[in-house]
């Protein structure tokens, strides 16, 4: 009950923050969606970082390190440190400047203008929304699993209706916990809009970073059982099997091709929206520099905790050992008292919610701006009606995701990789739109269609994520090279886009002048 009380208290605090930020709301859709371009460097860093660090980074990385070993950090964390900041630098600043100049609120508005194509939204919108669903699913699924795991033994049998109690082991049923988290995030997003989301993200990112370090300290001390932290760390790590310390079981080509995955940051619709909230281009400097370092602070403790879970210093019950998503909550619950468990759980939930909020808000913005207002006609709906439509669409998508979360769970890490792979395959499109004058409307359409069809085909081939070891294999000179599906999708998209662009009519001179102005010599 103490754990539940602390989680409840944290949620109440978050709602209060959302309500407070709503008092600063200016009542316009621009303020609701972009916080009137008022976000400075620190809040931009925290909201960008909080948005990219999801359940994937905490629950997923711990579970994956438990299964695959120490190499997991190199698979995604160090590469993300390089690639994410690269995307902020080469895409973020440029898109911010175009957004500020021409008043874009969403990615599709930008592409519509750059490609001189009124219908690009019709094809891009379902692709972007379809691929964000697995991303939302990660957060919704992980929050349910986490709350259930840390509250095990709290309730007696019969407290909840029979269909909810299956496999709950006396904890809050996963479906109930996921539902509550969805409702909480919906409430503060609805009240606070982008300003509330940015504030909540900043607050929650601080919470999960501080509590993450505390979690690591407490778990290391308890597991090692020595008097000093260093001695405990050494004892815990000395018990790790040599197989988990190396990458002997990992394929080198697979490791190399994981590098394509973080390129997804360039096409995440919610990050695009965050980029537009920046007060100035200089606001990007702090996120560009601090992002790799922050990733390290969050991922390293999770990887070590996952590795320690493989040792004989702790016994995992069979259901936990079979479910990598449950490793972190189990370690937190097993090795801490109820007060610490409650606080640490709040930290993990903070990380999960700080991503869900941006994604929810972005979905609503895209639907109203790109579909309702654009195709329905400007001025047809009042500001109030626009915000209401945004909220209704968000609720519909969250309901779909929630229903998906009730089915057979997938590994958070695997699902995350599929989602990121789809967005990463669209990276050539956004990059070409900013740096390649010859990109044409037809080339862009071909890129989106190629990306979507190759993603659907390969995701189906992987059993919709159930085959966690799925790779695309190439036989060259008698050797087989196994690669991540993202590489194939990325190159297919890029090649098709380039070929089609080269053989179709070029953009007009007016468009080229608008997006590639000649600069006077300095």
């Amino acid at each position, binding site marked *: 009950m103490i754990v539940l009380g602390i989680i409840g208290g944290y949620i109440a605090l978050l709602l209060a923050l959302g309500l407070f930020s709503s008092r600063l709301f200016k009542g316009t859709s621009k303020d609701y969606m972009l916080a009137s371009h008022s976000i400075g460097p620190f809040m931009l860093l925290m909201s960008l970082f909080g948005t990219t660090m999801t359940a994937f980074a905490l629950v997923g990385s711990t579970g994956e390190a438990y299964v695959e070993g120490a190499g997991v950090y190199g698979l995604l*964390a160090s590469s993300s440190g*390089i690639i994410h900041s690269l995307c902020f630098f080469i895409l973020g600043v440029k898109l911010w*400047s175009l957004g*500020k100049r*021409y008043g874009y609120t969403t990615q599709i508005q930008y592409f519509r203008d750059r490609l001189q194509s009124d219908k690009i939204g019709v094809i891009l919108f379902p692709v972007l929304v379809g691929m964000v669903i697995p991303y939302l699913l990660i957060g919704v699924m992980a929050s349910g699993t986490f709350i259930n795991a840390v509250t095990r033994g709290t309730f007696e049998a019969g407290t909840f209706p029979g269909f909810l109690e299956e496999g709950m082991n006396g904890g809050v049923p996963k479906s109930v916990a996921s539902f509550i988290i969805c409702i909480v995030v919906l409430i503060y997003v609805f009240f606070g809009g982008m300003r509330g989301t940015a504030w909540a993200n900043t607050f929650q990112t601080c919470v999960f970073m501080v509590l993450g370090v505390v979690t690591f300290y407490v778990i290391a001390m308890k597991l090692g059982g020595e008097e000093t932290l260093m001695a405990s760390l050494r004892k815990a790590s000395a018990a790790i099997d040599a197989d988990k310390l*190396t990458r002997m079981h990992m394929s080198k080509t697979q490791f190399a091709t994981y590098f394509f995955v973080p390129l997804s940051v360039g096409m995440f619709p919610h990050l695009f929206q965050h980029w537009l909230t920046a007060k100035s281009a200089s606001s990007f400097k702090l996120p*560009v520099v601090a992002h790799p370092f922050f990733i390290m602070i969050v991922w390293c403790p999770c990887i070590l905790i996952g590795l320690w879970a493989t040792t004989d210093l702790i016994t995992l019950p069979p259901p936990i050992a079979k479910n990598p998503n449950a490793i972190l909550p189990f370690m937190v619950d097993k090795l801490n008292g109820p007060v610490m468990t409650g606080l640490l759980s709040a930290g993990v939930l903070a990380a999960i919610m700080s991503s869900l909020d941006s994604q929810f808000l972005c979905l609503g913005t895209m639907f109203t701006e790109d579909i309702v207002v654009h195709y329905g006609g400007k001025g047809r709906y009042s500001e109030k009606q626009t915000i209401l439509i945004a909220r209704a669409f968000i609720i519909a998508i969250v309901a779909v995701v929630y229903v998906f979360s009730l089915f057979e769970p997938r590994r958070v890490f695997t699902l995350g990789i599929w989602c990121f792979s789809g967005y990463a395959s669209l990276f050539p499109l956004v990059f070409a739109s900013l740096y390649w004058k010859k990109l044409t409307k037809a080339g862009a359409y071909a890129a989106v269609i190629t990306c979507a069809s190759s993603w659907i085909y390969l995701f189906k081939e992987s059993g919709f994520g159930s085959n966690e070891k799925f790779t695309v294999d190439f036989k060259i000179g008698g050797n087989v090279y196994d690669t991540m599906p993202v590489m194939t999708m990325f190159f297919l998209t890029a090649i098709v886009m380039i070929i089609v662009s080269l053989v179709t009519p070029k953009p007009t001179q007016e468009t080229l002048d608008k997006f590639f102005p000649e600069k006077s010599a*300095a």
Partner: protein
Amino acid sequence: MSNQLKQGRLIIAGLVILLMILHQDNWNWDNSNLVFGFIPVTLFYHMCISFSASVIWFMATRIAWPDDVEEEVLAEVSEQGGDA
């Protein structure tokens, strides 16, 4: 674009490519040693990659940052009489 900025961008591009190459550390593949007695070598090496990335991006903000973009945009927006 000034020559200094061009040079700065080339330096940063070179360093980022170098970091990407160093990321594929085949030589650590079967190393099971622990650095400081508790961090696996493979993890420690990639922590250093993360740290180096932060240093390179800090350099980018000093020698390759597009300050002109901000000036141009703000001038244009104020000419138009406010937020676009």
